[in-house]
């Protein structure tokens, strides 16, 4: 992951940011299926995520209207070849890109609902008598 960048190692260390104390850098995939009937009963309909193609991502990962100050354009639009290459070989740069990366991580975190897609769907189709 931490590839050496091109050029003499001594003079070209990649930038790294540890990040804010409260800003989590990890999202864990929660189990797809709750084993207990109680969990299935408590299933809620995941909040529909319109994933509007033109929306921007705010720092906390929510979607906001395009152009909202402090929010970032959708990841797809900005992941050009050089961005991807830089991300793969060098991670994020400090400042704006770090914040954008954290906003994106929060957006990814919010994609997870309480229980996974089909289980919730199945239990909604079969409401408790």
């Amino acid at each position, binding site marked *: 992951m931490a590839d050496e960048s091109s050029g003499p190692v001594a003079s070209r260390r990649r930038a790294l940011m540890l990040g804010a104390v409260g800003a989590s850098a990890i999202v864990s995939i929660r189990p797809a*299926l709750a084993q207990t009937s109680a969990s299935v009963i408590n299933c809620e309909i995941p909040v529909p995520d*319109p994933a509007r193609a033109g929306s921007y991502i705010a720092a906390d990962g929510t979607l906001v209207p395009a152009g909202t100050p402090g929010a970032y354009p959708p990841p797809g639009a900005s992941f050009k070849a050089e961005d991807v290459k830089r991300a793969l070989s060098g991670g994020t740069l400090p400042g704006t890109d770090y914040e954008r990366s954290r906003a994106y991580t929060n957006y990814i975190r919010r*994609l997870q609902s309480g229980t996974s*897609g089909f289980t919730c*769907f199945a239990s909604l189709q079969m409401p408790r008598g």
Partner: protein
Amino acid sequence: MRHLTHLRIGPIGFRVGSDWRGPIAALENLYRDYPAPEDGIPDFNVHLFAARPWRRLLRPSVHIGGDFVIPDAAPLPLAQGLLAAEMGMNLQMALGQRRFLLLHASAVERDGQALLMTGMSGAGKSTLAALLMARGWRLMGDEFALLDPATGLIHGFPRLISLKNEAIAVLERALPKARFGPVLKGTPKGTIRHLVPDARAIAAMAEPAVPKLILFPNYGFAAAERAVPPSETFVRLTQASTNYVALAERGFDALTRLVQTIPARALDYPDTATALTQVERLWEAA
């Protein structure tokens, strides 16, 4: 179980037993062109049963059982027995499938390559798949796509297409000569009508396809598109899978390979005509 039928959908064989003739008759009618389980051996059992013997006749209500169950699930009225059978089969797949990574996505095939469409219920993946079938794509499935971790190929699960509410009229107009099941009103999801996949979909059900494009359609917005990066596609697909965690490292490898290999696009669309044009263009460009 006094009434019994067997059928195969894609690579999966089912044995469905029932306390009533009705649901079995409906299955045998609508699935009449489908093959039997391979070697006669079903992968899963579904049971449609009455809670008490007298409930077979008095206010008959159908409880759904099988190899895999959701405890205390509410029963359905006998009039919706076909739906109960479908739910029973879905449940076996959702809870018991271990060979394939199960994706909650519709799939259609052209030239040996598969288009996957996934998203929340109501986003349009089933309706769009049915309309693409009407346009000559081979339908692989309206609800589930199976990813084989060993090969990376997509296998179809072409069950009866489950159309809900407004989508019913749309498909009745698009495919006036197709076979439809009964209109089922007052179900937990509104009005449902099943559409039988066409002869080509049934004949080719055992043929997998190479995945080419993933779409996340969103119905009811002005037309817009964006590229979805692999990390986001990965997380969305784990949310759309019922057995990702159970498949452990095989599942991880299969899904990472998929998102690294093929492009994904989010698609907002105001109506199906617009969506179909967008889909054809995105497919050519992928």
